[in-house]
């Protein structure tokens, strides 16, 4: 069974490569990144040789890898196509061989290999002597096995949860705390390291509790084996193996349930209110009403707003209490706005086949402009108060509450630019998306990653460039009295933002008029 699943995984990879040039490019880029991670991790772990905090750091690295295995499939890559229990439920497969097969399939590919190779850096950095080396090899194998089993256990558990609509909604929100921790690792940790506040010595003693986690057991087993405590080392690895067995059993149980659990989506709730809000304000109001409802009821919309808030706080957290607080405040406002552009740069693809209802009814430039304008109104109704609140909150933390107006000015211009770019990218570079089992966030259909990258970087870059005049105005007028410059700055920034959004709507309306059938064909390919 293991062989069959490995063959299936390899065949899926091969067929994916044949499907399009973009898929080939994505595979090559992914493989290069995997190789870089392997080499970088190996070198980093090997460089710890002789470092007093080597076991602490190794423990942290092992834990970070386990965390990565836990969240990356949820955040970016979706569930491996060979691992969806639903596709296997029809076959007479016993759960145990099925689990072994799925585990083997999980371990196949560039990233698991990169994981294994990278962690083998401990054979130089931490291991001493023949027995230490032997235990290091064993510990790395068990660590990788633990990572894979943990990831499968969580995704299989989520797959079960995702069978009901309410469960799907609930599971989707799990991504918010996961994303917050991810942001700490990617934003805060590198900044603190660069500022010298986080050094290898900072990790000394960090493993007081972390050493008792499964990755910590693996790291400490290597050190104990190298320091002449073979019994303790073997005991720790035995404990790790036992954790893997328990996790594996839980996974198999979850898998067994997943194969036979019924769909409970019909256990539904009703909504209050009789009609669409602001429906009486023409087509623009009607579209705004529908978008407004979606921003409140669609979990992915709520997640996007939470992610925006988390990122805004995370990027400013290390500077907001320093004399350079203003850069953190303005940077946070600009990035928050840019994220709105990124997260809404494929609104038609994200609408999915339901866009057909709109495509059938909307014709003509005027109607399409009203459509984009309506969407912008709904987004602006959330974006403006949310970003303003965060800007003033950060300014208050920095003990310069009045400077919240500076953040507000940047964010108002940025939101305008973001809405413009979102509208333009959604008609010029739309792509179909799909939600995979185990993943609450949609990802581009194979072959469209280039479109997402274009939308993401175009939106980020475009928004940041668009807010530069406001940032400069904010900085260059700092010597003027706040009571004079703040209202002018905020009003001018708001006018600038509205003008940008208006231009975006006009451009998007014109392009959409020419491309409406093509946009529909993109939307209809989305699987949400």
């Amino acid at each position: 069974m293991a062989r069959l699943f490995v063959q299936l995984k390899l065949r899926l990879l091969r067929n994916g490569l044949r499907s399009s040039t973009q898929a080939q490019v994505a595979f090559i880029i992914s493989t290069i990144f995997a190789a870089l991670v392997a080499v970088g991790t190996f070198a980093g772990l090997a460089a710890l040789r002789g470092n007093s905090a080597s076991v602490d750091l190794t423990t942290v690295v092992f834990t970070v890898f386990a965390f990565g295995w836990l969240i990356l499939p949820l955040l970016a890559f979706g569930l491996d196509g060979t691992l969806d229990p639903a596709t296997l439920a029809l076959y007479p497969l016993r759960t145990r061989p099925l689990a072994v097969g799925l585990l083997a399939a999980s371990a196949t590919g560039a990233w698991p290999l990169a994981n294994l190779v990278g962690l083998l850096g401990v054979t130089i950095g931490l291991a001493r002597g023949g027995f230490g080396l032997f235990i290091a090899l064993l510990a790395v194998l068990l660590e990788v096995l633990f990572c894979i089993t943990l990831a499968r256990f969580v995704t299989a558990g989520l797959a079960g949860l995702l069978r009901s609509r309410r469960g799907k909604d609930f599971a989707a929100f799990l991504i918010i705390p996961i994303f917050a921790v991810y942001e700490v690792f990617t934003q805060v940790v590198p900044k603190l390291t660069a500022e010298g506040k986080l050094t290898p010595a900072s990790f000394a003693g960090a493993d007081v509790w972390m050493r008792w986690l499964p990755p910590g057991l693996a790291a400490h087993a290597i050190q104990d084996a190298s320091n002449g405590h073979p019994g303790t080392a073997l005991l720790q690895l035995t404990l790790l193996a036992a954790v893997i067995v328990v996790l594996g059993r839980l996974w198999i149980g979850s898998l067994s349930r997943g194969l036979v659990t019924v769909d409970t989506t019909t256990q539904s709730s009703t909504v209050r209110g009789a009609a669409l809000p602001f429906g009486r304000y023409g087509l623009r109001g009607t579209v705004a009403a529908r978008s407004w409802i979606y921003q409140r009821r669609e979990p992915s919309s709520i997640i996007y707003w939470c992610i925006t808030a988390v990122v805004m706080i995370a990027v400013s957290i290390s500077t907001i209490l320093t004399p350079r607080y203003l850069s953190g405040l303005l940077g946070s406002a600009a990035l928050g706005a840019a994220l709105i552009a990124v997260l809404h740069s494929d609104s038609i693809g994200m609408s999915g086949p339901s866009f057909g209802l709109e495509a059938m009814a909307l014709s003509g430039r005027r109607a399409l402009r009203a459509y984009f304008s309506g969407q912008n109104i709904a987004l602006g109704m959330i974006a403006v108060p949310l970003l303003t609140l965060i800007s003033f909150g950060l300014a208050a933390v920095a003990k310069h509450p009045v400077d919240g107006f500076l953040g507000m000015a940047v964010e108002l211009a940025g939101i305008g630019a973001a809405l413009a770019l979102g509208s333009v990218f959604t008609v010029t570079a739309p792509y179909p998306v799909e939600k995979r089992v185990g993943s609450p966030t949609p990802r581009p259909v194979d072959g469209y990653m280039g479109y997402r990258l274009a939308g993401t970087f175009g939106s980020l870059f475009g928004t940041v460039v668009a807010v530069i005049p406001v940032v400069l105005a904010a900085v260059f007028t700092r010597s003027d009295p706040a009571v004079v410059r703040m209202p002018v700055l905020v009003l001018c920034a708001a006018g600038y933002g509205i003008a940008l959004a208006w231009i975006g709507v006009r451009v998007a309306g014109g392009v959409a008029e020419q491309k409406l059938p093509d946009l529909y064909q993109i939307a209809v390919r989305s699987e949400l």
Partner: protein
Amino acid sequence: MGEPAIAVRGLRKSFGPKEAVAGIDLEIAAGSFAGLVGPNGAGKTTSLSMMTGLLRPDGGQVLINRLDVWADPPAAKAVIGVVPAEARLFERLSGEELLEYAGRLRGLPVGEARSRAAQLLGVLDLTADAKRLVADYSTGMRKKATLGCALIHNPSVLFLDEPLEGVDPVSADVIRRLLTRFVGSGSTVLFSSHVMELVEQVCDHVSIINKGRIVATGTTEQVRGGKTLQQAFIDLVGSRADGGEGLSWLGSSSS
């Protein structure tokens, strides 16, 4: 035959090397209940998508009530309603909100949109579920909601792609009666289906499409030619399998 409600001339569409629709011609009279039947992959959905302005054709012309769909899409779209094969709707709206939204998109005043939505929900037997999210609707309820969205602006021509696929008999009967009433008022329906019995029962005009070409078209009686529609269809399209004669191992008596 009077003025055609739907006139299709030389409609073509290729996807790469595959020719999905190879130049079809079709005329459906106003007030007809017309069926478009064909095997899987024959080009039914592609043809309907092009006729409704949702898929750009490589060539040909589609006229709805003499309005050219591809020369003047807004005018043509205003007089048609579409029920796609897969009822994908705005899942996070309630049934009531969805129909009102569809009506407002079509330019109906607020009061009129709400009133028609309520009436349609009643006729479609969805009043009790009007405040439930569409995400929680069953397949049949979704089909009925989609039909409501397609009818709310009172189109003169209605296109339906596999309207009764996966729908229970009770919901199917509701849909069938509503469509019959719609045609009885002088409007036109063109729907695609695999179910020959249904087409034979309700349609006065049938077109058979195979490999992207119309191989037969006319009144149901003409196309049947004294046989059942199922038999006429198989005779025209041809049986595609040998009935499993080569599978000697298949069946309880085999070892």
